[in-house]
Structure formats: structure tokens, C-alpha cells
């Protein structure tokens, strides 16, 4: 694109003109950003963006990374935060950039009318330069939404480490979702409190809904079971999926000190059986005493 460089330079030197045309077009199109800010505000936000884009096109730096352009990156992060804040969609950036593309295409055609063979290369450079910010916007927007979803699911998780009393002396705790350090603490606290309150002697801890059991999660399960035992309650761990069990064995994590059963039903059956034996034993020892 060297031959057309001067022309391009001329074109992009005229940034105010481009800016005017772009903003005008955004207004005509009723761009979504303008529902949330004035045209003057949008213009101000767009200034840096246009400068960066122009510089990249001019220097022919089409294979750049947004991460290597701190000014541009900061600008795009700002757009992302705004979009998320205003409740705009992941595609909010697209019409905005497309509008600029349209303006630039027309300017390029005008500018390069004397050298039309330069047009394809100039177009392709411009497209490339404009694609990166768009991709960056989308992925940081998605990352931000994922963060929001995560913190919401954390909030739900806090509400949803329920302990249910399912029988005299038996409580159950079905765990659902990812377990991180803070959640592991909540689980332990909730369970121990419930044991104290209900005077339960058996606990069903079901992890069918826990996707990953790494050594950190295993450790917190082991600690929870031990703490419950100190309070006089025996835990039965249920719902370890086969692939998780297999992986734990290979990891070398020993759950041997914990009674495990395939599923909730088997766990409950086991507990009822244990209760029966211990009550009949109590009965036997009573009859022995009285005789």
C-alpha cells in the first residue's frame, strides 16, 4: 500500500471531517449508544478510537494486537463496561464500527480515484484494522458477562447449601455447583450448625451436582466429615460420579475414611439399616440388663 500511503495520510489527516461524517451517520441510523449518551459525549469517546485506528492503518500495522495498544485497549474496555452497564447486547459495537467503515470506504474511493488498483489493498487493511477492536469488544463483553453470571451463581450458591432434615436423626445436604474455598467454608459451617440444632446422628452428603472434585475440594469434604464426626454425626458421601472416583484414585486422594455410597437412595438405605442395627443392639443390651 506504499503508493497510496500519501493519499491515505491525507485522508486520515482530515480526522475532523471523518468524525463529523461518522457522528452524523450514527445519528441518522439512531445508533444504540445515543440512547444512553449525547452525541457530544459519544464524539468525545470516539476521538481516541479514531486516532488509534488511523494510526494503525497509516503505519500498515494490520496484524497488531489490541493488548499491545494500551490506549486502544483502555478505550475498548470503557466501551465494554458502558455496554454492560447500559444493558446493551454483545453486538452493540458492530453498528458503531460498521458506520465508520462505511465512511472510510467512501473516503477511500474518493481519495484513490486516481489509483483504483490500490483500493483492494487499502480496503483489506482497513477491514483488518477494524476487526480487532470488534473481536476484542465481543470477547471482553462475554468475559464480563461471565463474571456477572459467576457472581450471581455464587450468590445463589450461598442460598443453596441447604440442610434438610429427612428423618429423625438424619439430615441431608445436596451440594450443587462448583465448590471454591469460600463455599467450602459455608458448607462446613451450615452443616455443623444443622447437626447441633437437629442433634442428627447421620448426615447424607450428596455431590452428584458437583462437577469437579480436585484435591482442594476433597480436602474440604474430608475435613467436613471429620468435624461432623467430632459432633457425633456420621457422614455418608453419595453421588461421586465414576469418572470422578477414578480420577481421585489416580490423584492419590484417599477417601477411605469416609463411607461412600453410589447414590442418594443407597446412602439413605445404608443409614436406615445402621439405625436399625444400632437400635436393635440397644434393645438387646436393654433386655440383657433387665434379665
Amino acid at each position, binding site marked *: 500500500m506504499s503508493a497510496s500511503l500519501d493519499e491515505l495520510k491525507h485522508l486520515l489527516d482530515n480526522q475532523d471531517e471523518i468524525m463529523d461524517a461518522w457522528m452524523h451517520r450514527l445519528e441518522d441510523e439512531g445508533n444504540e449508544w445515543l440512547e444512553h449518551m449525547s452525541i457530544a459525549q459519544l464524539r468525545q469517546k470516539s476521538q481516541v478510537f479514531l486516532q488509534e485506528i488511523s494510526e494503525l492503518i497509516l503505519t500498515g500495522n494490520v496484524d497488531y494486537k489490541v493488548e499491545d495498544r494500551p490506549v486502544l485497549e483502555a478505550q475498548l474496555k470503557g466501551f465494554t463496561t458502558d455496554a454492560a452497564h447500559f444493558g446493551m447486547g454483545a453486538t452493540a459495537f458492530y453498528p458503531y464500527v460498521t458506520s465508520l467503515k462505511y465512511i472510510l470506504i467512501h473516503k477511500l474511493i474518493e481519495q484513490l480515484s486516481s489509483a483504483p488498483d490500490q483500493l483492494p489493498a487499502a480496503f483489506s487493511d482497513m477491514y483488518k484494522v477494524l476487526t480487532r477492536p470488534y473481536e476484542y469488544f465481543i470477547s471482553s463483553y462475554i468475559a464480563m458477562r461471565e463474571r456477572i453470571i459467576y457472581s450471581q451463581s455464587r450468590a445463589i450458591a450461598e442460598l443453596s447449601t441447604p440442610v434438610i432434615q429427612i428423618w429423625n436423626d438424619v439430615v441431608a445436604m445436596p451440594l450443587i455447583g*462448583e465448590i471454591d474455598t469460600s463455599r467450602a467454608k459455608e458448607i462446613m459451617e451450615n452443616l455443623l450448625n444443622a447437626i447441633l440444632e437437629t442433634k442428627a446422628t447421620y448426615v447424607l452428603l450428596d455431590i452428584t451436582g458437583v462437577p469437579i472434585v480436585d484435591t482442594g475440594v476433597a480436602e474440604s469434604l474430608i475435613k467436613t466429615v471429620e468435624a461432623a464426626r467430632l459432633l457425633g454425626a456420621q457422614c455418608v458421601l453419595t453421588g461421586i460420579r465414576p469418572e470422578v472416583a477414578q480420577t481421585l484414585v*489416580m490423584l492419590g486422594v484417599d477417601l477411605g475414611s469416609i463411607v461412600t455410597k453410589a447414590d442418594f437412595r443407597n446412602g439413605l438405605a445404608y443409614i436406615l439399616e445402621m439405625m436399625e442395627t444400632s437400635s436393635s443392639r440397644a434393645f438387646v443390651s436393654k433386655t440383657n440388663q433387665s434379665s
Partner: protein
Amino acid sequence: MVENIQIFQEYDAILARQRGREMAKQLGFSLVDQTRIAISISELARNILIYAGEGEVEIRMIESSGHKTGLEIRASDKGPGISDLEMALTDGYTSSGGLGMGLPGTKRLMDDFEIRSDVGKGTSITIRKWLSS
């Protein structure tokens, strides 16, 4: 297919292992292997958080000279490093009151396990799992 995940908080470790599992699934790894990969990523990412504070996890699809496909994970940090690698790789050794099974366990779960660590400079661990055809 390359994913680079900065590890700053526990959420990032969870995100990294979820991404790893997704990529493993896409490549056609079995359910057990997907789980192994996810747990290994989880171990390395959590170690970064515990011992180095922050770092990054990179997950990429790879191909060997023999046209074997696999998944490579590199977990690196600029933390304190590990002075005695042999000890760190011993079952049950922990400096934080953990289970001490993260590193040796990950080594068993994966096909390749390479560790580089410079005291005061940081740690970089590369693991690979190959798709058995």
C-alpha cells in the same frame, strides 16, 4: 485453538478448568480424560493462587510429529518458585497444610509433565495429554 486465562482469583481457576474440559471434549477426549484434564488444570491454577498469588494458564491444541492430537496446558507464575522440586513432587508433601497431592497427582493423571522453577523468579509447569487413537 489456544486459550489464555489470567489467574487472579478462584473464579479464574474455575473458568480455566471449565475451558479445559470444553476443549478436551471438542477434541474427542473420553469423559475420564476430560475429568483428568479439568482436575489437573484446577490443581495447577489453585497452586498459582495459593503460592504465587497470580499467574496464567494457557491451554492449546497440539499435534505431534506422528500426527497425534493432544492438549497442552502451561501454568506459569512469577511467584517464589520451588527450591526442592523432588520434595514438591512427593506424595503428601505440602507447605500449606493441604493434601500435598496436587503436583504428584497431576503428574500421574497426565502423559507428560515438565516443571521449571527458579527460586525468586517463578514456576512454569507444562502438561500434556494425548488423544489415543
